């Protein structure tokens, strides 16, 4: 027996040595014949890993046809420890070859390959697709504005998915309460539905919750406030700033402080009034309920409406014991104009601009190439591959049921046979779909897709001044939702004014940070100047990128220096 044990020990030891050497950081297989790259991220959601496993198989097949033996290894790390793991991998110099970005711009600049030099060329894997010939940067829905590092005027990663916010509806509960299945489209219809659901709960003696809210991190309050703020005030982007389209909160405060007649403070406070009124239908004790509890409540069938990101859409719809619909957060009205909403304030009218343009926003999942990679060309090639049209359809749409970050993507096409041939997994909800299932899944994704909208884009809310002060202002809104005062706008604004000293203190620190950033940027400029001594063309361009980015930073500092004096001029509403 001892001899047997010894033999087994020896065999397993040899096998483990082979496995360790084979998957070691050498970058090639044990016989040195294949190139090995690692692909790492923290996305543990359904379908994401499976989608990339299929993409990896496809990539290895394509490379084999080109005579290059490649092995791609996918690694996932849970999100809670990801940031720390990410940093230690970079510092250790043994990072994955293509990795999901974390950390701040300084870390990315230090450890990641700048991608600007590659973004002007077309993605070779887009041949035969609607994106053929387009510069890689232009294939993304936002022209890679989200991926741009403002501090370094450089791109260190490319996006792999898009997220939007929608409302999930317990259709069974809704139908029982309302007597019909037509979903609310306007704020008035939504409030009426919430009231009827409450009445139905009383009737059947169940603690039903009209609107499930993640109050713990104040996320839902912020989402509702932003949503209605955009619909009411986005037109100020056309007029408030003298410098161009769009306005910063500093400019809004300057106009209010100067009593500029073009700016109506009451209009800026209307979203507060609307959010407070909607808050009547939040779950009792919502401020202590976190996201997991809210989802639990929704899945238990006691919540009618739940606002969350579309990354959950497929699992919410398919894993519930009741029918779930996905709808946008209701607009103020059906057509743009002055809308009154009974049940909020008698006689009040709200300026409804239409549904906001979501296109070009919500991009996430940045993946980059660390400088320490042993196969930079292969890593870049793989990055091209996973951000190509067809592979995005495979991984994001077909498998994950998420949204693609690319332009012109046909969602129905993602469920056809061409993409189906790349599905090697055994999951029937991906591989063998009936026409009805395909139609259902495409329908769901279309509901999650960014809206074209009426041609207005987001505007900052009135409470967005100083990050700590902004959080305190949201807490004020939360208190008002609980207490339901008569005059929420007045209370909210007067609380903002009373917090002016705190806001000024925060602005002072932001000014110091901004000055430090100017110093850092000059350090970057100097680094590129030194680089230009070796490679004039590449680095001179980067110097220009840095200096062009500096123009915005100089303006931001100038604006910041004026903010404290503007804040001191704010007056309470009597």
């Amino acid at each position, binding site marked *: 027996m001892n001899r047997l044990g010894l033999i087994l020990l020896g065999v397993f030891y040899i096998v483990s040595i082979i496995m360790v050497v084979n998957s070691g950081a050498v970058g090639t297989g044990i016989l040195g014949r294949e190139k090995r790259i690692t692909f790492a991220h923290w996305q543990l959601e359904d379908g994401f890993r499976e989608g990339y496993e299929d993409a990896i198989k496809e990539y290895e097949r394509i490379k084999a046809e080109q005579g290059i033996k490649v092995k791609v290894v996918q690694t996932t790390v849970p999100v809670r420890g990801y940031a720390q793991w990410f940093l230690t991998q970079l510092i250790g110099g043994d990072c994955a070859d293509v990795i999901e970005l974390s950390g701040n711009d300084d870390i990315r600049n230090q450890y990641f390959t700048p991608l600007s030099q590659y973004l002007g060329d077309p993605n070779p894997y887009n041949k035969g697709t609607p994106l053929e010939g387009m510069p890689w940067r232009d294939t993304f829905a936002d022209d890679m504005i989200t991926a741009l590092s403002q501090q370094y005027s450089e791109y260190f990663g490319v996006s792999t998915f898009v997220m939007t916010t929608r409302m999930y509806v317990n259709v069974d509960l809704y139908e029982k309460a309302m007597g019909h299945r037509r979903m609310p489209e306007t704020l008035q219809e939504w409030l009426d539905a919430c009231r009827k659901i409450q009445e139905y*709960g*009383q009737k*059947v*003696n*169940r*603690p*039903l*919750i009209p609107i499930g809210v993640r109050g*713990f*991190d104040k996320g839902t309050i912020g989402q509702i406030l932003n949503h209605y703020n955009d619909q009411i005030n986005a037109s100020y982007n056309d007029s408030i700033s003298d410098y161009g389209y769009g306005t910063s909160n500093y400019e809004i405060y300057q106009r209010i402080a100067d009593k500029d007649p073009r700016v109506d403070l009451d209009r800026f406070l209307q979203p507060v009034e609307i959010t407070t009124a909607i808050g009547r239908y939040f*779950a*009792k*004790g*919502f*401020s*202590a*309920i*976190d996201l997991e*509890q809210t989802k*639990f*409540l929704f899945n*238990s069938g*006691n919540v009618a409406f739940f606002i969350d990101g579309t990354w959950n859409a497929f699992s919410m719809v398919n894993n519930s014991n009741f029918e779930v619909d996905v709808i946008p957060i209701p607009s103020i009205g059906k057509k743009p104009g002055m809308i009154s909403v009974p049940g909020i304030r008698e006689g009040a009218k709200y300026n409804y601009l239409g549904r906001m343009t979501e296109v070009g926003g919500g991009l996430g999942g940045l993946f980059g190439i660390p400088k320490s990679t042993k196969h930079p060309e292969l890593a870049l090639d793989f990055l091209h591959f996973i951000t190509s049209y067809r592979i995005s359809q495979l991984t994001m749409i077909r498998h994950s049921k998420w949204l693609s970050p690319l332009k012109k993507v046909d969602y129905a096409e993602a469920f056809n046979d061409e993409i189906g041939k790349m599905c090697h997994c055994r999951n029937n909800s991906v591989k063998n779909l009936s026409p009805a299932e395909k139609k259902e899944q495409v329908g769901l994704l279309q509901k999650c897709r960014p809206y074209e909208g009426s041609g207005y884009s987001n505007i900052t809310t009135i409470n967005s001044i100083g*990050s*700590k002060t902004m*959080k305190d202002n949201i*807490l004020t809104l939360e*208190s008002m939702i*609980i207490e339901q005062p008569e005059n929420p706008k007045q209370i909210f604004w007067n609380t903002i004014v009373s917090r002016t000293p705190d806001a000024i203190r925060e602005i002072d*620190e932001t000014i*110091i*940070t901004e000055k*430090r950033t100017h110093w850092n940027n000059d350090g970057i400029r100097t680094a590129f100047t030194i680089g230009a001594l070796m490679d004039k063309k590449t680095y001179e361009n980067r110097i220009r990128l840095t200096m062009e980015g500096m123009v915005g930073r100089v303006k931001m500092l100038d604006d910041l220096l004026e903010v404290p004096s503007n804040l001191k001029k704010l007056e309470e509403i009597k």
Partner: protein
Amino acid sequence: MAVDVSVKKLRYYWPVYLLIAVPLLLVLLFSYYPIYNGFVHIFYRWNGDTVEEFIGLGNIIRVLNDTTLLNSFGVVLIFVIANVVKMVLPIITAVILHHVINDRAGYVYRVLFVIPMIIPAMVGILIWKYFYEPNNGVLNGILRACNFLSGTDSIQWLSDERLVLPALIFMGFPWVGAFGVLIYLAGLQSIPEDVYEAAEVDGAGPLTIFFKIELPLIMTQIRINLVLMTIGTLQAWEHIYLFVGINGGPNGIATVPGLRIFRDAFAEGLFGYGCAIGFVIFVVTLALTFVNNKFVKVDK
């Protein structure tokens, strides 16, 4: 046992001192240096990164004028008093366990008390959070089943200002955590049998034995637990954060100094101010430990 060693003889013992020097260096580097660094930053406006400005006593003055911080010490005092009361049940449990006649049964009970120790505290907190959930939670469900609440009513255990503190105090009921019970049990088991025999001979009843013999003889353990509990309660904030969030619940009613440090330093970037609050906690802890040592005497 410590022995005086002359300097001459040190050359024979230098390997020992060298060995001690290494962990001592690590303690100095990873324990004392951060404390020193924190103490220095009390006098700075510091955001942990780009802003580091010497402001003298500015943070201390702010601490002394901060009424919400003073309130948080009031809250933590309530928790300390409640935790003192909560120490009673583990003592009683330990005494009961000690008097179990059947050895095997006693062993089984001890194991049953130890097993829950392997469950992470976080899991316990999350379970209690669901317990308190106002809409579908266990507690409100029980109250509805007993007709104390109607089907649609709910009590907001963690959102109602009046109920947050009692809910946090009640958490963990019946508060017979294995650690305390086992420490007291170890103390009780060290009482010699002849003491019990002598007490029986003198006609002492169970209560007399408890108050006159057992309680005084485990006073050392009680004192240790009291000190540890006081320090732990003064510093604890994680369970409050998990229960009611970083703001300490409705109107910050459950904010304790530890949560204030976390919020001010890590959420709001006021690291210097956080260091000042930490210093105040240190002073208060030291004072309470002194009081404990002076007034909780162990009369052997």
